[in-house]
């Protein structure tokens, strides 16, 4: 499966678009409506982080298969300032922007897998996954 959608994020309307595209694509995998909402909420958090900290970037939504298990991968990347202290940024209630500090740690709780890489003045990439329910 190679279904992939790219959403360029540079305004708050793009955040809404990323959510909608994410819901559409994930729906193909037979996620429950709760899971769909968790995925879409996580997409919203990482997309907003791009806007808040890097002003622009992109979200890639991809359907993946791994050993028969299917899932959705969400990649959020930007060429922004980068995160100086990732451990801090992943802590609840820590924020240097306008957020509540729930964005990244919140997104991690909503998804099954979550990885973040960041380099000062190079940018940040978040890769997160949710596996679809096993259909036997």
């Amino acid at each position, binding site marked *: 499966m190679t279904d992939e959608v790219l959403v360029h994020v540079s305004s*708050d309307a793009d955040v809404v678009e990323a*959510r909608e595209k994410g*819901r559409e694509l994930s729906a193909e995998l037979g996620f429950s409506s*709760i899971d*769909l909402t968790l995925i879409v909420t996580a997409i919203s958090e990482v997309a907003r982080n791009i806007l808040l900290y890097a002003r622009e970037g992109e979200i890639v939504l991809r359907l993946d298969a791994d050993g028969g298990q299917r899932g959705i991968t969400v990649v959020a990347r930007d060429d922004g300032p980068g995160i100086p202290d990732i451990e801090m940024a992943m802590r609840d209630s820590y924020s240097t922007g306008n*957020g509540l500090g*729930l964005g990244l740690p919140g997104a991690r709780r*909503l998804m099954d897998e979550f990885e973040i890489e960041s380099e000062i003045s190079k940018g940040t990439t978040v890769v997160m996954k949710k596996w679809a329910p096993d259909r036997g």
Partner: protein
Amino acid sequence: MAVPILKQGHYLIASIQAALSDSDVLQLQDDLVEQVGRFRSRGIIVDVTALDVMDSFASRSLRGIAHMTRLRGAETVIVGIQPEVAFAMVQLGMSLEDVHTALDLEEGLAFLDTQLKEPADGDR
């Protein structure tokens, strides 16, 4: 898309119709805080039934609406949070614990009526 705000008696009812962008949410915040004064409203209902996602920004803004309008002398009730959205909000860490919520518009109106001890004009 701007959120329509309906004036009913002493209440303002903001009924969210479609997906909200961040600027729509901020606009709603401004409109409600301003209209509470203009219409001398005592209660506000924000109906989020149509929202299929509420992230930390939207939740924080709704909380902001409740706090700001309280400072302006009105009580706000958030109604219609969908079960999936409630689930996601708790996972995310947003509980809106200091904000009044009700199941739907009817319950929200009933709550405001008891809270403010007088029925709204034109109450049906």
